């Protein structure tokens, strides 16, 4: 379908999924749908600052607000979009402060298009959809970036937090103490036995260090197998 931009007159080709777009030539926002078909929009109650506080300082490279369309189903809101966010598949957003969509509430770049196939499949109407605010935070993770979604109403992270369990399961000082805990009794036992037998100095030293090493590395084996916390 072709329309012309109401501001600069440029001819634009519009897909059916687009109800609200930005003219690439003059940056004007254009609504391509009848007033009665406009969706509802939920006003975000969580601000940028609150989202930034969820992650360590400097972890967020970029933060953007997006609106994902949901339809009101009998069993709660149903997602009516197709976007590459596996964590949103099972997610059902909380109810928020609803308003009828108007152009001053969101920009065309913030709105995730409605998947008309899903609407048709479930026999839903576009006018019944609700645009739910979700913050998209681009996290910097050791030279790698990943997008994490934060609900704009509840302020909770959707899906798993990739920064969770950031402290490594291995703590060398704990390994040291555990090894010493088993190595020391072994070494002490051998030492005192040899002491009682009045063995020579270097033989005693050799056998004691063998006992100490055996004890310590036995502890390492034990620790290595069940030391890490299980999910």
């Amino acid at each position, binding site marked *: *379908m072709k*329309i012309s931009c109401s*501001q600069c007159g440029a001819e*634009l*080709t*519009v897909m*059916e*999924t*687009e109800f609200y*777009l*930005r*003219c*690439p*030539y003059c940056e004007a926002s254009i*609504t*391509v749908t*009848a007033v009665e078909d406009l969706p509802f929009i939920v006003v975000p109650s969580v601000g940028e600052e609150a989202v930034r506080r969820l992650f360590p300082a400097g972890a967020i490279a970029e933060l953007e607000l997006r609106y994902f369309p949901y339809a009101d189903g009998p069993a709660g809101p149903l997602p009516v979009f*197709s*976007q*590459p*966010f596996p964590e949103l598949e099972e997610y059902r957003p909380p109810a928020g402060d609803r308003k009828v969509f108007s152009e001053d509430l969101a920009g065309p770049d913030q709105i*995730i298009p409605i998947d008309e196939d899903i609407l048709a499949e479930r026999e839903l109407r576009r006018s019944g959809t609700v645009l739910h605010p979700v913050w*998209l935070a*681009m996290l910097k993770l050791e030279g*790698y*970036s*990943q*997008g994490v979604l934060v609900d704009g109403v509840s302020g909770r992270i959707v899906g798993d*937090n*990739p920064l*969770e369990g*950031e402290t*490594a399961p*291995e*703590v*060398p*000082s704990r*390994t*040291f103490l555990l*090894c*010493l805990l088993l190595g*020391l009794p*072994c*070494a*002490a036992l051998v030492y*005192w036995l040899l002491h009682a037998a009045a063995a020579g*100095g*270097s033989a005693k030293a050799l056998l*004691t260090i063998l006992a*100490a*090493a055996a*004890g*310590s*590395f036995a*502890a*390492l084996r034990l620790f*290595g197998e069940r030391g*890490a916390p*299980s*999910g």
Partner: protein
Amino acid sequence: MAESPFVTLKCPACGGGLSLREGETHTSCPSCDSGVLLTGAVGNYVLPSEVGSTQALRAVRKAMESGWKDSAGRSRVSRPRLFYVPFWHISAQVQGYVLGLEPEVREEEQPRPVENPDGQSMSVFQSTRTVKRRVGVRAVEREVQLRGSVNVSAADLEPLGIPNLSSKAQMSLEGMEIQRNALPEGLEVFDSRVHTDGVFVDPLVSLSEARADAEEYLRRLAGGAGRGLEQQWKYLVFTGRRDCLIYYPLWVVGFAVDGRPYRAVVDGRSARVLRGRFPAGPSGSRYIAAGAAALWAFAIPPLVNLLATGTFDYHSGTTSLNCSGVLLIIAGALGIGTWQMLRALDRMESRGGTRHV
């Protein structure tokens, strides 16, 4: 805000509202029953996934094991998900002219003074050099005629760790069969009855935006015709434009190792892991810690004996040493050293722990 501009899709016969499905070229008006043919509809193509979910899992497993052998056994993998991500393929013919002023240069030979072999005198006319001298400008007209095509990301791939393709992007898509210009091979026409597996991601970038982006790229390409011109004017016309939407397969695999979540993206054509984070596994620091513990276990019993009896008996023979104080100071210093080393190792471990591709 300015007056809201509304545009509605209307039936040309009765003016009623029309609804058209994506990819459809004809429909009938629900109010007046007249047939409507849509021209200029966009073709949708799919690059079908050649990788199954088990193959995608195997690729992730292999990547996991290459870093830390035990991690695959410790991992909890969720069901891999297939996403078909959209790209706009815009091809167009650029025709036009670049008008400009070309500097006119005259080459002149100038004598160059050269030192004579005797080192005393200079000979002037033995050698010459060429000097370019600008003598004016000439108006030129250069014709531009090129056919080019550009692929532009229609979805936002950055949350998956993959760079977006656009006229501004510098990065290419490493390891993927779709690149900035060429149409990938093996495309099939999209049919919702045939291509049922996977989620077909809706484009976030409108066709008009993609066209504007492609035009900018082609304009820059055509601008090469104006090389060396001072003050240039370009008149470019885009004709024979063909656009289509290409869906590219990507598998997204989420997994957790020891309760820590990770994610990897696998190419649906080559089964290569494109992007992902993986646990790095235990490092050598645990052996350092165990070795230090063994040394301390070895040293503590004779130190206790030394404190109790005043004899250090790892020495061959049982010579009494009168330097227990010195030994204890050395032991104390070594103790502090061990503690500092362990603290440093702890810090090192908490920083590392993941690696990425």
